[in-house]
């Protein structure tokens, strides 16, 4: 009822403008009919404006998603021209590969958790640093954001060189007995990749949090200072609560990105050594290499459902936290 009323209210000015143009041309008949049809036109053209966005979303997102789901129910393969509907067989095969899938899922969660913690903690810290006024602050902002603009493959190759067994980092660390085979160690490889990913992507969190920090009202901070609050207390009791929504958003989006991570892993370790850095996405890639399109699509559907579920849970948790804060 209220929506309909709103619709009528929105329709009036539009029809009035149309009527005005008609009156200017001296077309009295069209003037009256324009008022009658105008509300209908307005009602429909609101939806017409949505058409391009809906069309793009449907063609580039919805249709491929549905096609992927359909593929997961077939035996589609790059080696066989015909595709047969096989029901849930691919999902049964996934159950047969459960130990490998479980390992990949755990690694994906560990990866997402590490990059989320790393990028959020570092990002917030750097944003606080850059929120201060000092010489070179603008330059530092550029420097922090710069790595995002590099190609992931280039960054992967670069760190492959820096972190290799006899690379520059180990040359520096060797005198202290801290040299490691960063990408070659089964125990360290996953964390080495997350460190590189954090280095590359922390700028995005910085930008988001810094924008929120700069929106904190100056008078609020000033009154806190007048009340005798020190920098730490201002940060803890004024700024962080004020920018919590931005931190939460950055963390949530970083986690979701981490749950889909592939390019950095592919560029640095290729999923190895062994399966030490194999995540769901690299597992899907490996399946595609064997031509098993249907099976790869099934794993993708599984990953999509898992990310959606996790994102919903995190979102609800964050909202509850914000509500109680």
């Amino acid at each position, binding site marked *: 009822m209220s929506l309909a009323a709103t619709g009528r209210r929105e329709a009036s000015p539009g029809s009035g403008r149309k009527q005005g143009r008609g009156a200017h041309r001296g077309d009295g008949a069209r003037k009256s009919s324009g008022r009658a049809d105008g509300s209908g036109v307005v009602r429909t053209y609101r939806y017409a404006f949505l058409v391009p966005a809906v069309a793009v979303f449907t063609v580039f997102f919805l249709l491929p998603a549905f096609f992927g789901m359909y593929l997961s129910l077939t035996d589609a393969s790059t080696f066989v021209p015909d595709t047969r509907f096989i029901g849930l067989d691919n999902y049964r*095969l996934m159950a*047969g590969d459960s130990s490998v899938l479980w390992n990949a899922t755990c690694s994906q969660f560990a990866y997402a958790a590490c990059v989320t913690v790393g990028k959020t903690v570092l990002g917030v810290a750097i944003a606080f640093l850059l929120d201060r006024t000092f010489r070179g602050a603008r330059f530092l902002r550029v420097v922090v954001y710069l790595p995002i603009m590099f190609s992931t493959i280039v960054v992967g190759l670069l760190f492959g060189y820096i972190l290799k067994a*006899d690379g520059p980092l180990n040359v520096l660390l060797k005198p202290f007995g801290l040299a490691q*085979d960063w990408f070659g160690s089964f125990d360290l490889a996953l964390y080495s990749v997350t460190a590189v990913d954090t280095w590359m992507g922390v700028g995005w969190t910085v930008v988001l949090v810094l924008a929120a920090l700069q929106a904190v009202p100056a008078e609020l901070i000033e009154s806190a200072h007048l009340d005798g609050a020190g920098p730490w207390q201002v940060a803890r009791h004024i700024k962080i609560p004020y920018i919590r929504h931005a931190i939460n958003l950055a963390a949530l989006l970083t986690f979701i990105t981490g749950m889909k991570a592939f390019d950095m892993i592919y560029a640095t370790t290729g999923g190895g*050594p*062994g399966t030490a850095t194999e995540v769901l996405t690299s597992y899907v890639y490996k*399946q595609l290499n064997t*031509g098993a399109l249907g099976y790869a699509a099934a794993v993708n559907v599984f990953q999509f459902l898992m990310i959606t579920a996790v994102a919903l849970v995190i979102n609800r948790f964050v909202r509850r936290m914000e509500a109680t804060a």
Partner: protein
Amino acid sequence: MRRIRRIALIGAAALTVSAVVSGCAGDDGTDASGHVTVTYMLPSSWVGVPGFKENVRAWEQKTGHQVTLAPVPDANYDALVQARIASKNGVDIFAGQDTAKDKAAIMQPATGPWVQRLNPDVRKAVTSPDGKIWGTPSADGLNATGVLYNKDVFAKAGITAPPTTLAEFRADLEKVKKSGVTPLHLAGKDGWTLLQHRSSVNASFIGADKDLVAKLDGNKVKWADTPGFDQEYQALSDWVNGGLTNDDALTSTYEASTAALAKGRAGAIINGSWALGEIVKSNADAHIGFFLLPAADGHNTLGLQKPNMLKVAKFSKVAPQAQDFLNFMIAQPQAQSFLDANPGVSAFTDVKAAKPSGGVADLQKLVDQGGSVLPFDQQSVIPQPQDDIIAAYQELIGKRADVAEFGDRVQKAWQSAGAKSGAAGF
């Protein structure tokens, strides 16, 4: 209004001209002078190979026909060929698609005077069970996997002849280590290089049991039950555990391994004979030899890869000319000039490298001995779970898995690949 009319007139004129021009071409793809254009879709890396374009131009001059070379980045090659085949347009000659189940639907069987010139082992390998040959072999050299070794390093370590047993090989590696050089360089970051060990080992397995591929493809035997499996992989594990391989075996690359071998920093690598070109790039003066990886029972077998087979598309309107072009490219004079520019082992009995390098000469000797088999991956109908096998290899050489666990992982990957492909028995 006048402008719109003018644009419409120009458009109509352009359409008319294009219709007239295209009408000059016949349905059989010939132009007004009776010549045709053959579209050859090839991986980008093939275009710059010495001697290739010269032979293409020679055919064009001889026949008056044209060859349009359509290079495609290697990584996207198969997908783009499949797209052109699906649209039945834009390609007359292509490579790959060897695993297509219905070959007759997309390509034409090939024949020519070259069939009788083929090395008997190669002829057997390229002839399908129905007696047809799906594709024309290219002039490229044949490849095999085995041990590429630095002759100077081995000589300095006091090794006078290549080993024939696993025990001898181990002893040789120990000698190289004592001389202060890394005996065997593994390039675990480029996982495909580890698969060359598998390819070498599998060739000897097939040599010992000709039905092995069928048995494994039918899931009638387990990989670990193959005679010699435990010994071969235990030997690899022992080389790593005995410090006979490089410390960065998991993170080293193919380029690093070939450079180390070329410059005498490593005694040997396990790879394909194609690596000889890369080694020469690092050090043109390197003396490199080639021998087969010793087998557990002492009887190793050469796994000789099929030459690249070039196919004429089923829908090609210029199929006779395309086949004539392919036949010309491997006629004796052209095949010989190509091999002179790219020394290797030819698939043809009447083509030999004039001055083969050590590695090529060693391989030629093995090919001439006969008795080679087609590598496992080229015989098997199961899509090879290469990434999973690479992961298993990395765990073996990373000391995270023993031979029994390695065998389990390979078997699981094999079972999974067989089931996903819908093969009978899985």
